[in-house]
């Protein structure tokens, strides 16, 4: 739409105003359209082209799970009473009858046993929440490993990362609401983490809980956060996220005809709109299947909250697992030396709870790392260009290796939250599980980095090999003079494009600044840049390709095909420039 000129001619305006629909549906549609102006929306958005790949749909899953969670959550609010005032349970669950409990727990039980469809909705809400965070995580992993966060999408990456953190917050506040022993234990850990903050920790904890833990304020407060503040923030950020996606246009995988300037795919209307609408119902179906067949958070097991017992198998939901796990693998003592100590202060000393504070370091580093990564990578590589074509993970070996290392680091912390179940279910000693996890915490990421980088480089070499010599056809030929030789099938144009259209620049070395000096920071950058780019497999160049084709002594028809391939390879390399 150009703003400078008149959008439509006089005749077009007249045609639009004088248009008389003939059918009943047409009349209704025209009535609405002349008042709402849907045509321009449909015209603009309905023609928006999106590329097609299954890995692009995780964000959609996150959105749909969020909607399902909001709707099922609204149902739950009709019965749930977020009050910590006590009552005597008289509902239909026999093993808890007559026990004193909070209204929050009693109404959660009522929802589970006395409200028609209540248990299903509770389970749908919970499975939906697990799926919401899962889909966001997988979506983020996809974006990271394909380099979709690069310019111009850095800010949208930050919006996404914020959404993930908000998802964790939404999940945790919800997990804490039913006020049974399990959620109380979770809150107790949060309370412990808050209190571990030197000097001000106790004040923060008292502020949150309205006095000493558990108090009788925290559930209503978490409820306000859970049903109002956090979902509102999530909704706003989803809107921003989607707006930016539409504005930037979607990224696409490299392929024939796909460039930095176009999007190859299908328009939203009508096919994608229908598909996306249908996919919502698939997600709803999968979550309903889970909610209807698999029990989740059987809160009647845990009993009304009591600060004294901690039950075996007390774990947070999966996305908070890494907080729990990293606390589990942190030792409280080294030998006989306690890691907790008292810092002498004029007012009598403050306890420094190192065993709780130190585990917060990897968590903070990982979360902070997610937020700053686009700029960090950009700074190291010195790449200031826009990127709308995605990287195949193997074609960015250092990023992929580093990403896998961080995923492994996360997985070790996450897995540590189930250390007790690993011990019982694999007949291991709990102590050994913890020792191995401690080793894996430090060694796992390093091993993962080295292995992944080698695997990426090996895959790149394999791609080179296929581009130049083709696939092994599995057919052995014997020539007239008795020479054996295997037939190779050259890749077709589509495959060749994918195999050769990437770039692997050499390390760039330190660059002097405006005054012509190389600063210390620049030296660090150059060093990181060398680590980043020093191991590389160059993509097949046009000359190499033609030489190999000549060497194979292709027939005239083959040469013709080679020329068209040549066009593709040169096209691909120019796209990256």
């Amino acid at each position, binding site marked *: 739409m150009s703003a400078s000129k008149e959008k439509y001619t006089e005749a077009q305006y007249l045609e639009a105003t004088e248009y008389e629909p003939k059918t009943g549906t047409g009349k209704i549609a025209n009535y609405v359209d002349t008042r709402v102006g849907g045509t321009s929306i449909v015209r603009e958005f309905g023609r928006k082209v999106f590329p097609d790949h299954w890995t692009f749909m995780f964000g959609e899953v996150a959105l749909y799970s969020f909607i399902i969670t909001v709707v099922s959550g609204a149902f739950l609010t009709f019965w749930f009473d977020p009050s910590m005032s006590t009552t005597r349970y008289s509902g239909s669950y026999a093993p808890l009858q007559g026990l004193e409990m909070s209204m929050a727990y009693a109404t959660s039980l009522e929802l589970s046993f006395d409200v028609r469809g209540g248990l299903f909705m509770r389970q749908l809400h919970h499975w939906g929440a697990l799926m919401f965070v899962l889909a966001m995580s997988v979506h983020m992993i996809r974006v990271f490993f394909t380099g979709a966060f690069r310019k111009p999408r850095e800010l949208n990456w930050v919006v996404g990362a914020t959404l993930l953190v908000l998802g964790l917050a939404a999940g945790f506040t919800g997990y804490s609401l039913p006020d049974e022993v*399990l959620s109380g234990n979770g809150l107790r850990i949060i309370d412990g983490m808050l209190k571990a903050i030197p000097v001000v920790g106790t004040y923060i904890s008292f502020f949150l809980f309205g006095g000493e833990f558990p108090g009788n304020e925290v559930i209503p407060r978490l409820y306000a956060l859970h049903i109002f503040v956090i979902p509102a923030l999530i909704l706003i950020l989803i809107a921003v996220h989607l707006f930016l996606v539409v504005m930037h246009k979607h990224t696409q995988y490299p392929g024939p005809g796909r460039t930095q300037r176009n999007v190859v795919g299908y328009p939203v209307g009508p096919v994608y709109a229908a598909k996306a609408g249908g996919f919502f119902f698939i997600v709803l179906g999968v979550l309903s299947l889970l909610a209807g067949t698999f029990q989740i958070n059987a809160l009647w097991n845990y009993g009304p909250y009591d600060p004294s017992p901690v039950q075996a*198998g007390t774990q947070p939901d999966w996305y908070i697992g890494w907080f729990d796990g990293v606390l589990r693998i942190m030792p409280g003592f080294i030998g006989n030396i306690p890691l907790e100590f008292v810092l002498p202060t004029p007012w009598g000393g403050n306890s420094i709870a190192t065993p709780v504070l130190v585990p917060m370091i990897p968590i903070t580093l990982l979360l902070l790392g997610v937020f700053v990564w686009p700029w960090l990578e950009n700074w190291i590589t010195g790449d200031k260009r826009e990127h709308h074509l995605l990287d195949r993970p193997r074609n960015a070996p250092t990023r992929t290796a580093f990403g896998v290392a961080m995923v492994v680091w996360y997985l070790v912390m996450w897995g540590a939250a189930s250390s007790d179940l690993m011990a019982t279910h694999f007949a*291991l000693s709990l102590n050994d599980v913890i020792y191995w996890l401690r080793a894996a915490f430090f060694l796992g990421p390093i091993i993962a980095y080295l292995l992944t980088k080698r695997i990426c480089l090996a895959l790149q070499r394999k791609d080179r090999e296929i581009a130049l010599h083709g696939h092994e056809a599995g057919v052995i030929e014997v020539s007239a003079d008795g020479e054996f030789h295997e037939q190779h099938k050259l890749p077709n144009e589509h495959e060749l494009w994918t195999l050769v259209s990437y770039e692997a620049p050499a390390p760039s070395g330190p660059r002097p600044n405006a005054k012509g000096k190389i600063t210390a920071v620049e030296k660090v950058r150059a060093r990181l840049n060398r680590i980043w780019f020093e191991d590389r497999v160059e993509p097949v160049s046009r000359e190499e390709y033609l030489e190999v084709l000549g060497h194979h002594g292709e027939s005239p028809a083959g040469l013709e095909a080679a020329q068209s391939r040549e066009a593709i390879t040169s096209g691909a390399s120019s796209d990256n420039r």
Partner: protein
Amino acid sequence: MKALSQKRRHPFAFVALLLLGLLLTGGLYAAATTVNQAQASNTPDGFSSEQVDEGERLFVANCASCHGMNAEGSDAGPSLVGVGAASVEFQVGTGRMPMQMSGPQAQQKPPQFNEEQTSQLAAYVASLGAGPGIPDDEWLDIDQGDPARGGELFRINCAMCHNAAGAGGALTEGKYAPSLHGVDAVHIYTAMTTGPQNMPVFNDSNIPPEDKRDIIAFLKTYEQQGSPGGFSLGFLGPVSEGLLIWTLGLALLIGSMVWLTSRSS
């Protein structure tokens, strides 16, 4: 009689009386023990001497290599003097004893002895010294128990090792608290009174028999109710839920994503 009444202040009267008293009690005790021995040699309540004798034979053949010929214990196994019939009922009745192999703790397996042999062994072990006995049927009758109270007691005393749903949990060095699903009432009771493996003893002053019955009633009620929300995923809580969403949940969705994008229009 007069002579007797006159001599009652005699200096030796006290001694004579003491002698008489001692003789009488001693004689009575001797008579009583002889009578008792006539029934069985040191037979514990509820068992017969034949059971003790038969139990001793079974013991020598199956248990003595570790626990010693007179159950006095050895490097390989503890002394069984004073562990009571309840210990035998639990350890042998659940198949933990005789132990298949040494390890962090005795594993449950199909019992090696039938009920008759188990009570014979119990009789022998009980005859070695006083210890917790087999509970009366009254304390195992779950209809008389209060499951709600039992649930509360269970969560306070048991759930930290056995899990809130009785699914079991890990202990240190390869030891673990087993699942309580499908365990006989008598074995739950005797486990509490004897504290097998790493379990603490919950004696009658700690948890009275009525409370033990409540706990059993809770566990049995819980077992009968099943899992109201669908498949229980092992009653393990968030870990198995997380595993399911990352496996089945993700697989179903990826499957539908691949299907949706396999035909572009």
